[in-house]
């Protein structure tokens, strides 16, 4: 510090060497896109509980684990019994195309648990005015929140797909050839997961954004999804049991949140719709259109809500 080597503390009061006074900031100021990206990253951390107490990490991790558990078991089997499998035995608990239809309840619970966390918190603790008096616009806010939950759901949905893929490869003796044959089978799970992620994220955030209370939001999501699954089924069975068959009542199934997403993912795998899960004569393509429309509608509801909410 000083050329004569005298200790700094001798001349300056303790602590003052670090106190440079208030300094103005004249560096760059980025705009809306950066603000949106920052909110996206922060929300993503929040969903998984990073930077939050341990208790905030439990629910997302456990639910993601439960959703993946069957695929992980299959992966474990295929590595343990690799020898027997190569001799011709087959161990298949799940496939890419029917995994979501079988295990959707855990992804749904993930939404119920974490969607309120994403949006209710900011209303509950009145953080919104701080956002809306900054570079961030209301549309950007809604978009960042939707993207963060959709990304999280995509991760949850893809973990078992990756596990299934690895398991399938381990079952084969020629790994490189296996990648070549398995990869095209696994690939449709990527766009299917993107669609399911956005579909569930849009519905659950749109519902959650109307209340600052997490519990109400969770109840709202469950109520909406269960009702919209049950009502079309009820209409359909009433129509069917009354005179002269269903007569087009099956089109109400297009309003179902979960079933239409299952039908839409079947489209990506070019799979036949299992008549046990899908009543009526709707095609996978129709479900795909319905699912895409639902994403758009609920994304608009979310944006509309944040355009109106007072800051």
């Amino acid at each position, binding site marked *: 510090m000083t050329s004569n080597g005298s200790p700094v503390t001798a001349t300056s009061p303790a602590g003052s060497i670090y106190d440079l006074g208030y300094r103005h900031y004249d560096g760059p*100021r*980025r705009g809306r896109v950066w603000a949106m990206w920052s909110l996206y990253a922060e929300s993503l951390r929040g969903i998984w509980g990073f930077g939050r107490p341990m208790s905030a990490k439990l629910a997302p991790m456990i639910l993601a684990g439960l959703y993946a558990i069957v695929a992980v078991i299959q992966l474990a089997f295929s590595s343990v019994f690799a020898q027997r499998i190569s001799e011709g035995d087959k161990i298949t608990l799940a496939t890419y195309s029917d995994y979501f239809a079988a295990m959707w309840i855990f992804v749904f619970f993930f939404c119920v648990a974490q969607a309120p966390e994403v949006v209710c918190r900011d209303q509950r603790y*009145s953080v919104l005015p701080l956002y809306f008096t900054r570079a961030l616009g209301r549309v950007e806010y809604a978009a960042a929140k939707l993207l963060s939950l959709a990304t999280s759901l995509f991760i949850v949905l893809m973990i078992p797909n990756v596990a299934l893929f690895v398991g399938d490869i381990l079952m084969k003796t020629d790994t490189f050839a296996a990648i070549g044959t398995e990869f095209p089978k696994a690939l449709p799970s990527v766009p299917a997961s993107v669609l399911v992620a956005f579909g569930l994220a849009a519905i659950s955030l749109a519902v959650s954004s109307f209340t600052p209370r997490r519990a109400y939001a969770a109840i709202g999501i469950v109520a909406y999804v269960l009702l919209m699954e049950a009502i079309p089924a009820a209409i359909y069975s009433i129509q069917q049991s009354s005179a002269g068959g269903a007569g087009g009542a099956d089109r109400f199934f297009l309003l179902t949140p979960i079933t239409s997403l299952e039908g839409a993912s079947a489209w990506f795998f070019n799979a036949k719709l299992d008549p046990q899960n899908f009543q009526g004569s709707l095609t996978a393509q129709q479900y795909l259109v319905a699912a895409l429309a639902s994403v758009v509608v609920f994304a608009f509801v979310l944006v509309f809500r944040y355009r109106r909410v007072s800051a």
Partner: protein
Amino acid sequence: MPLIETVGLTKHYGPVKALDHLDLSVEPGIIGLVGANGAGKSTFIKLLLGIIAPTSGRATVAGLDTVTQSQAIRQIVGYMPEHDCLPPDVGATEFVTHMARISGLPRTAARERTAEVLRHVGLYEERYRQIGGYSTGMKQRVKLAQALVHDPKVLLLDEPTNGLDPVGRDEMLDLVKRTGTDFGITVVVASHLLGEIEQVCTYLLAIDAGHLLSAAPISTFTQHTPVLAVEVDEDANGLAAALAGRGARATVDGSCVLVALDSDGIYDFVRDAVADMALPLVRIQQERRRLEDIFREPAATAAVPPAEVQQ
């Protein structure tokens, strides 16, 4: 160029006139915005921030229109809301850094500014603890820090001393004063407590029921008035009558007789009258204007004669 300028600024909430044709023009400094609860202080601040739109009229901050250029205003304005606005489950450092990034600061700058600003507002070791465990005083400091972190030109503080004990109140006012004088940031402080405004502000805006009562440098409110207060222990009415008999304009205010200082002879009249009547004299003092008077004067001049206005 005036920093804040409004022309016919009006905001109605349904039938309620929160602000009614506000015309004012304010230079940089520490500006006190004073008025009773519900007088329109928060509405005024929100209009300046551009988070609510005026019913009619317009306002500019640093030459930027609050409606058409609100995006640009948000870059140069910091806002500390009246209510709680802090999520309880993150630390102050993480929260303020996040807000800095939403304001457009790049990652590194956001971290550095956060560290500096938290030190300025007096948060040290506790900055990494969760905000939920903070005292009200610490929370107010975090709220101030998030408003300061992007180095605004104008700081809008809505009731910054809300809920603080006397010591916390003085510390917060000292911080506000330092922000205005040392950091060179224009501060608008809304408060319903005149004493606070008097302590820190250089300029005063007084609003009442949506109308502007006065706008002037604070010194003009506290200068000497041409009124002599003569306090006696008994018979103030008799003294007033005696002084009136000598041609002075005198009114009674409690145990005080207020005498207009029309000429130097007034002092002699008072001395003689008190001596003649053998009254126990407590004090003779030239009255200072008090800040409260600006809220009393319109009512006083309208209906009640000054002598009957009680403290």
